[in-house]
């Protein structure tokens, strides 16, 4: 066990820092704008900035450190990847709108795609030329994702798609989507699914923004009416869509959980600043025992999160398989951030619910964070789903008794 870089890692870090110094501006360590979520205004300019930064990284071969070289990656290690992320976080860079592509669709295509499909999609994805989105959830299929009803019917060399998807982040600026459909309503629910890559600009795809509790509209509902998808955009066999979707979901948990390990110093630094200016019934926050206790507790929990990410990566880099462990991170982080943000707002006293004008604390940063957090606890598998994963796959508990197993999908009760 050694938390420090090996000489080889130190040399890699130096190379990363040199490149970042030459290509980006260093962030003020006390700048809290990195904490914002769902606050970016997704203007066309912002999308272009994100793409430009990704292309700059791609030109210097930093875009996908762990991807194999023949797909345009660096062929580097997971530890090198985390080193790059740690250093990149210290610079002012645009938001990452490529997570669904690089973190989910890419790894799924690598496992389930044909050589032609890999060549067709992965290099473009890596350069950030084209953005990807995910079409999984439906109005009637959230945690019970395999209950989805978007219909795929074979028609010559094409498939015809009809149905509706929801919670599709970034659909409005994406070129490609990963899509799970039902191709057989007579098969049991997990057997009748087929997985596609869909062109979001194809005729019959209609995207409508959904206004969120934050007031923004980062995600959408997507209606598909007689959309034609060529059969060469099917990933893996007809009827094998559930296995493909599981690959995506596993990578989703990993990218959500893994991306959350950083920022304990930033968050706690911000809480400490708050404690120096806020008053609890006339007593300065930093002189109030309850405030000090909370700040210490949150630091301890954030630190353990950061170290758990590193432990998981160490296990992976020593040949372990990415498993259900990332469920721990996703579950713990959403709950923790919700508590931290709520506490920070409590410290702001009467101004706790105010944001967005000059009199609000830090420009309403904590309020924005607080409103965004329910999404972390729901997206990518709700807390309850993560607990099932931990309970059943890691602790060996029996599954729930179910009434939807082994019968044709069309016979499953829906309450409708």
């Amino acid at each position, binding site marked *: 066990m050694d938390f420090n870089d090996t000489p080889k890692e130190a040399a890699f870090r130096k190379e990363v820092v040199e490149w970042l110094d030459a290509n980006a501006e260093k962030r003020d360590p006390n700048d809290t704008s990195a904490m914002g979520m769902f606050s970016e205004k997704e203007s066309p300019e912002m999308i272009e900035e994100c793409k430009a930064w990704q292309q700059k990284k791609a030109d210097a071969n930093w875009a996908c450190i762990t991807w194999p070289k023949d797909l345009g990656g660096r062929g580097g290690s997971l530890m090198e990847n*985390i080193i790059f992320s740690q250093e990149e976080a210290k610079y002012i860079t645009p938001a990452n709108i490529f997570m669904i592509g690089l973190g989910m669709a890419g790894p799924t295509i690598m496992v389930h795609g044909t050589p032609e499909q890999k060549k067709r999609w992965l290099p473009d994805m890596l350069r950030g030329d084209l953005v990807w989105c995910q079409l999984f959830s439906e109005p009637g299929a959230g945690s019970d994702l395999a209950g989805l009803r978007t219909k795929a019917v074979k028609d010559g060399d094409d498939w015809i798609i009809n149905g509706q998807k929801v919670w599709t982040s970034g659909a409005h600026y994406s070129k490609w989507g990963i899509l799970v459909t039902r191709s057989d309503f007579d098969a049991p629910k997990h057997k009748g699914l087929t997985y596609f890559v869909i062109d979001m600009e194809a005729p019959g795809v209609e995207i409508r923004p959904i206004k969120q509790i934050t007031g923004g509209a980062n995600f959408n509902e997507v209606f598909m009416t007689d959309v034609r998808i060529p059969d060469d955009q099917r990933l893996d066999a007809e009827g094998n869509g559930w296995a493909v979707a599981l690959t995506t979901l596993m990578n989703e948990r990993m990218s959500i959980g893994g991306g959350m390990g950083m920022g304990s110093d930033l968050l706690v630094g911000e809480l400490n600043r708050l404690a120096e200016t806020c008053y609890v019934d006339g007593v300065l926050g930093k002189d109030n025992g309850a405030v000090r206790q909370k700040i*210490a507790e949150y630091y301890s929990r954030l630190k353990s999160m950061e170290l758990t990410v590193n*432990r998981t990566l160490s296990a992976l880099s020593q040949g372990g398989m990415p498993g259900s462990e990332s469920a721990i991170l996703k579950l713990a982080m959403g709950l923790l951030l919700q508590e931290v943000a709520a506490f920070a707002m409590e410290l702001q006293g009467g101004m706790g619910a105010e944001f967005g004008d000059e009199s609000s604390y830090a420009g309403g940063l904590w309020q924005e964070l607080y409103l965004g957090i329910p999404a972390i606890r729901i997206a990518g598998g709700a807390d*309850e789903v993560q607990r099932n994963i931990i309970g059943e796959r890691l602790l060996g508990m029996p599954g729930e008794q179910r009434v939807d197993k082994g019968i044709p999908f069309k016979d499953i009760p829906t309450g409708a």
Partner: protein
Amino acid sequence: MNFLFDEDQDLLRDTVKKLLGDKATLESAHKHMESGADYDKDLWQLMAENGYQGIAIPEEYGGAGMTYLDLAVIAEELGFHYAHTPFASSIYGAAEALVVAGSDKQKNDYLPRLASGELIGTLAFYEAGGRHDAASMVAEVSGGKISGTKVPVCDGLCADIAIVSAKGDKGLSLYIVDLSQAGVERTELRTMELVRKQANITLNGVEGELLGAEGEGEALLEQIVSRAAGLTAFEQLGGAQRALDMACGYALERWAFGRQIGSYQAIKHRLADMFVKVEMARSNCFYIGWALTSSADDIAEAAAVARISAIDAYSYATQENIQIHGGIGFTWEANPHLFLKRMKQQEAQFGSAAVWKERLYKVLANKAA
């Protein structure tokens, strides 16, 4: 960067697991509770023959000179198996006090015998009121003799020496006190955890050997307690893991309403929450294990986060383990209460979560300044 134990440490764990699995069973813990023995002398001897006590003590002082991570492996397994020994008091406490503050002569005098298990040491910091902060201490040194009452002293009945804090002209200092001398009175306390005996030790003008510089007691005490608490966190982690394992075992074994109770989300989700807390504590424990081995500047922070999260995981796991067991979990005969009681004993021994949160806050504030 590597955030895992290495292969040799994994092998060490297998060996320790085997030894403790054979000798430190819960059946034997129940027997020891009934017999009232101070500790399991056969197990202590066997551990010494395998070099456990001296694993992290430098070779020049009779130890094996391995790292604190190796010691951490043993600590975690001692917690998991509910071993009935004064290991924590003697090794994380007294031996660490000598490593931190001892002169070369004192290290030569005591460490080899602590390493071989021949001598048992403990820390005697607490005084009435359950405080161990310097300001609260009443024990004093006058004319070179120490007087005062230390309570509770863990393993205070079987210990041969104690590291005692006492006030003199120059402030608080630490002393090595031979507990076999006249003027030392020990009485057993009525305590929750029946295989880790607690004592009241009254010192009536006894001899003590100054440990570290005179008047430096407060700073030394802070360092020693950080190390002892950090290593104890691994025992707490092991105990929390055991409570979780027991709860999982029972959830599979017990049926209700025609199904295994582990198939109900009310139980399964609680087990998942226990698991998350245990894994979070494990990560912070790794931090103190690494800091003690390789990064002294991080010890204060790492000990605090390890301690805070280990207390959290251990208390949640042991309380919910009883709940998941239902009525049988409330019986003396079943095992869940053993870990609940040790959890409370270990929480009390080196400072509660509230103490460590306050300390951590100060560390963070200093870091920011």
